[in-house]
């Protein structure tokens, strides 16, 4: 996966609570064998409204999504993370996230940041993962995830280094 180190970018705000992954990418876009090209399905139903923020020309090229609480709740579809990435989003800031979505983001180099007061008013932000700051304000992240994101690590390769431990575990099972 592509590493995430530091990002300076345009903000796109979506001030709604409980945005579920069915909204981020509706089911008809899940019938794919690929991870690519999914931005055409991103917020597909909401984008029928020309005034929706993802349709506004001023926000094209945005790379930081600022969202409401419980963002990405619901279905486990990783297509939600793939669609955001395909649109150009590299970082999502929200007060809280659905657990599976949060995981899926981390596996794809899309940094999810929990901030109690997300900066909805900001036009641009600078996110520094090594320092764990958003425009200087601190955020928390689990050290293992941080390490994988900074280095862009494929964690299957890391896990396969534990082959001896896995095999020993299996040998202990009845």
């Amino acid at each position, binding site marked *: 996966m592509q590493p995430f180190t530091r990002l300076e970018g345009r903000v796109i705000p979506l001030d*709604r*609570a*409980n945005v*579920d992954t*069915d*909204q981020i990418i*509706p*089911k*008809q876009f*899940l*019938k*794919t*064998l*690929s*991870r690519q090209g999914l931005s055409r399905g991103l917020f597909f*139903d909401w984008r029928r409204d020309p005034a929706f923020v993802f349709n506004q020309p001023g926000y094209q090229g945005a790379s930081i999504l600022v969202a*409401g*609480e*419980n963002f990405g*709740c*619901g*279905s*486990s*579809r*990783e297509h939600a*993370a793939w669609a955001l990435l395909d649109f150009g989003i590299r970082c999502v800031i929200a007060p*809280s996230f*659905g*657990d*599976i979505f949060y*995981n*899926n983001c981390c*596996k*794809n180099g899309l940094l999810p940041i929990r901030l109690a007061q997300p900066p909805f008013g900001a036009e641009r932000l600078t996110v520094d993962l090594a320092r764990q700051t958003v425009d200087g304000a601190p955020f928390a992240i*689990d*050290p*293992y995830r941080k390490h994988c994101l900074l280095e862009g690590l494929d*964690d*299957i390769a890391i*896990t*396969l280094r*534990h082959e001896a*431990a*896995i095999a020993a*575990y*299996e040998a202990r099972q009845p």
Partner: protein
Amino acid sequence: MAQTLFDKVWERHVVSQQPGEPALLYVDLHLIHEVTSPQAFAGLRAAGRRLRRPDRTVATMDHDVPTDPRPFKILDEAAAEQLHALGENCRDFGVRLFDLDSEEQGIVHVIAPELGLTQPGMTIVCGDSHTSTHGAFGALAFGIGTSEVEHVFATQCLWQSKPQTLRLTVEGERRPGVSAKDIILHIIGTIGTAGATGSVIEYAGSAIRALSMEERMTVCNMSIEAGARAGMVAPDAVTLAYLRERRFAPRAGERDAEWLALASDASAQFDAERHFDAATIEPQVTWGTSPGMVAPVSGAVPDPRQMTDAAARAAAERALEYMGLRPGARFVDIAVDRVFIGSCTNARLSDLEGAAAIIRGRRVAPGVRAMVVPGSRSVRREAEARGLDEVFRQAGFEWREPGCSMCLGMNPDILQPGERCASTSNRNFEGRQGNLGRTHLVSPEMAAAAALAGHFTDVRQA
């Protein structure tokens, strides 16, 4: 030290762990389906990796499949391709597949328990958020994304940070007409859709003990709708009785003692606790676009202006606009166009029996289209053996083949814009059952009663 059910299952599956880091957790059973697995198989192939434990991996076809009479030709090319890819992948990697020709095919969370694949104390994962269903057996079962599916393929393990524990104790006797679905909807309405985020729930108390295995599955199924990583119920005599004689379960009695010992120790500590009184729970109906937007059927649609929290008010206003409802409307005055009895929440035999008991000898209201989609081929067969198909057909219901169907509408079963549906599924999100479709989550009995009346009805008066 005293341990919870969760602690015991977790501890037995830690392969390795460094202090302060996530644990490498072993996965006993990996369930897969056509929608969230193709990219994971592609990843394995691209990296030239093997699938480590095909014997611990089981596949079914459910999300995309039409529910028309079989055999059928799948007209949706993308769906057909996905189903075909799953068949090829399972063949190439040696994974057991319950495909459309199998007598055991069905929704992944329905077939694994009925085949006895789901067992107490296991770790179970699937690229599907409702994997929490299997927690009803005292397994630690949770949904994962496609990257994690690939990770489990290659390593049979996952990196996991230890979640918090939350015990929800439901005491007392439920009133007649109140189902397991009403219990879990009431819980979600009380603790909120993020009320259990980062936690594993243990459901406990006399009202939970009194539930059948199928009812426990309904409760655990919707744990994810409260934001939980997983939901669990301690194995007891009900669990053991259910597992006896199941195809993949151990020989009768063989592991009973070990399974019963998984129950939380009496003095075990939970990170958080909540208590509920079953006797105060009424049949529920959701009125909004999030499962937490729920109320007793005897009541009315709430008024957002009376909500003090600004975010909740904005969400409720938006939801009512989408749902085409006005504040104060009584539920019993809300007419339905469609009724869907199905999904991994409520499409097991007892769900169909509960609905059939309401409609026996009666007719679906004019203008309502009602359908039953059994959770699996086995459920369908057993229901037919009991004559339930005839009960439904004579009432005017469609009796269909198994699959996820209108729970998420990836197949041709969808709502038309503006249509209102009484649904036994688990998500009332905008567009979940079809663009601009309006979903109200209810129990199978409440769905059946709505089909007969043409509007929501208190099942206790149906």
